[in-house]
């Protein structure tokens, strides 16, 4: 799964990809944002300081979802009118990737669902209903967010992006869906909200005065 | 707990039914002589009178 042998074009340090299809990553040593082309790694920028937040998750946090285990390999921090939240890029034990949504101890695990019917960006309103894979979803929120920070490996490029629009949907049960309109090609993510305890998170951040 | 109580009630009931217990107490006396069979009038009933009013108006 991990690809050996690449080096940072800026500082020469070894760069490791923990997920085979990661497109963008950050060099741990010089903080350069690197994009993977067919041929090599290209530096496109430098990460800014991450905003402070209280999430206990960090890069390298491990956990379990259903029958799979995962490790967090990347992160995007978004900012909206009510604050910040993180989307953690997960490398799953079956070779696929997924996302862990992390907003003040409320978690959801979703996976990209390609080739599904998706409405146009302007056509969606709160309380509308959609159905995917036999499950009924209702639109709960429409969020306009901006990119506030990145870490680690991501399956897309974010260095050239500023704004993103997300539409969140919930089913009557614990299913959730997100329509991601940050790219020209919108992406649908399907998954479920999960309880923090159910994720069995290990290797969390340490907090002064709190034994882990 | 209730089982013990219930069995007690049923046991008490069985004893009462078996031995013919009742709430109305009946006046008893012992040593009624055999002579009463020959002279029933000599038996002084516990009931001095009648179970209803017999006096004049």
């Amino acid at each position, binding site marked *: 799964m991990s690809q050996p042998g690449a080096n940072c074009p800026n500082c020469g340090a070894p760069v490791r990809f923990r997920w085979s299809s990661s497109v963008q990553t950050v060099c741990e040593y010089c903080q350069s944002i690197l994009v993977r082309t067919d041929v090599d790694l290209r530096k496109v920028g430098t990460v800014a300081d991450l905003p*402070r937040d209280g999430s206990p998750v960090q890069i390298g946090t491990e956990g379990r979802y259903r029958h799979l285990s995962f490790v967090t390999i990347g992160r995007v921090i978004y900012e909206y009118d009510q604050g910040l939240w993180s989307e953690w890029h997960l490398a799953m034990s079956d070779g696929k990737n997924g996302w862990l949504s992390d907003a003040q101890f409320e978690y959801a695990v979703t996976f990209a669902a390609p080739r599904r019917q998706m409405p146009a960006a302007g056509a969606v309103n709160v309380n509308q209903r959609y159905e995917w894979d036999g499950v009924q979803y209702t639109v709960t929120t429409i969020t306009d967010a901006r990119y506030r920070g990145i870490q680690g490996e991501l399956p897309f490029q974010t260095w050239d992006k500023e704004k993103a629009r997300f539409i969140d949907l919930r089913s009557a049960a614990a299913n959730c869906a997100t329509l991601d309109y940050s790219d020209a090609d919108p992406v649908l993510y399907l998954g479920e909200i999960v309880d923090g305890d159910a994720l069995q998170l290990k290797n969390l951040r340490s907090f002064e005065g709190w034994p882990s | 707990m209730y089982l013990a109580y219930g069995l007690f009630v*049923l046991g008490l009931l069985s004893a009462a039914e078996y031995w013919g217990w009742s709430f109305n107490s009946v006046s008893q006396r012992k040593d009624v002589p055999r002579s009463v069979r020959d002279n029933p*009038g000599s038996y002084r009933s516990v009931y001095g009178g009648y179970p209803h009013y017999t006096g004049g108006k």
Partner: protein
Amino acid sequence: MAVVSGDAPDRPAAPPKVQGLNCPKCGAALSVRSFDHAVSIVCGSCHSILDAKDPQLRILQQFEGKVHEVQPLIPLGRRGRWHGAAYELIGFQQRTIAVDGAHYSWHEYLLFNPFKGFRYLTQYDGHWNDSVTLRSVPDATRGVIGTVTHEGVTYRHFQTATAVTSFVLGEFPWEVRVGESARVSDYVAPPRVLSREATGNEATWSIGQYTSGRDVWAAFALPGSPPKAVGVYANQPSPYGRAGRVWRPFLKMAGALLVLMIVLSSLALKSQVFKHTYTFDTRRAQPDQPESSFVTEVFDLQGHTSNVELTTEASVSNNWIGVSYALINEDTGQAYDVGREVSYYSGRDQDGAWTEGSTRDVAVIPSVPPGRYYLRVEPDADPGPGTIRYTVILRRDVPSFLLYGLALLALAIPPGFATWRSMSFEQARWAESGGSAPDMGSDS
């Protein structure tokens, strides 16, 4: 500083520290305990609410001197083992509602664990609840109006009122102001409670579980004892269990009673041991006339000690006959005295035909030992022109259905008492409910 993964050689991640800050107004030291989660911090010394997200700690509100100081029972910063993890008390607020002109206040304690998040302990009149925010919205569409359903359990509306924040201490992951109000609705399914809190357009749901003060005291190692619980609280579980349950063993006992009744009454002898018809000449009746007394032949009372049923039937019409009986054991001389009367009257008046009394009288002599017996009979009636025919019947060992009825009543006493206690408890619970009706409308 960007947080890097542990792989980097000489860049160990710096764990976030507990911040030491000072109040911009009075300079008092402030502890921030929730690692970048805090939105509002209260300075306990000068009662200023500060903006935790502002590096200058801008003052948002000052409530010094305007409120009654309240001491939290769990001190700020105290840690305890709660719900499977260590939690620290980081915030405290008092909230007040006005119902029927009276003010009721409760206390909310905010607990924090950096890995697990926030929990809330609420306390009112010695009753405690352990709550967390709910992510899914309970279903208000099914079932009766005034109930909501969550995870298959139906919660009944208990109270809706406007809650005003009347005192704050510590820090909170949301904006707080003394004097701000929220519409709070409680729905109960003891021991749980669903609370809906709405400010403006937003509504948040939380689920709470009734907790004993003793558990809180033990978890936080607090001195002394918890405040005594007064009355019955909204979601306090009933110590008497579910009312219906106590009647199941009763039904089983009643079944056993029925079987017993069938068995015993069929085993009873119910045998007729004596029947004779006599004639009383009323022309010869005089008060206290012992000549009318006579004795019957001797008969056997068989079996074990049991009762004797004595029936007197008389063909009286608008007349009466009194009979004084003595059941005498020929061998032991034991006598049982019974005085009976048969009277029957009938007639017509403006309301129609009426009757009074009966031509038949039944009496039971209890616990008569077996043996040879005879009856001494002394009839009496008003002096009259004719005769009264009367029949005396004795039956040995008859079942008493009154006793079966009493036994059934006795069996019903414990479940009846338990049901009464449970109903009183529930009455006390719902006596505290009220306020407004639940706010209707869809929820976000």
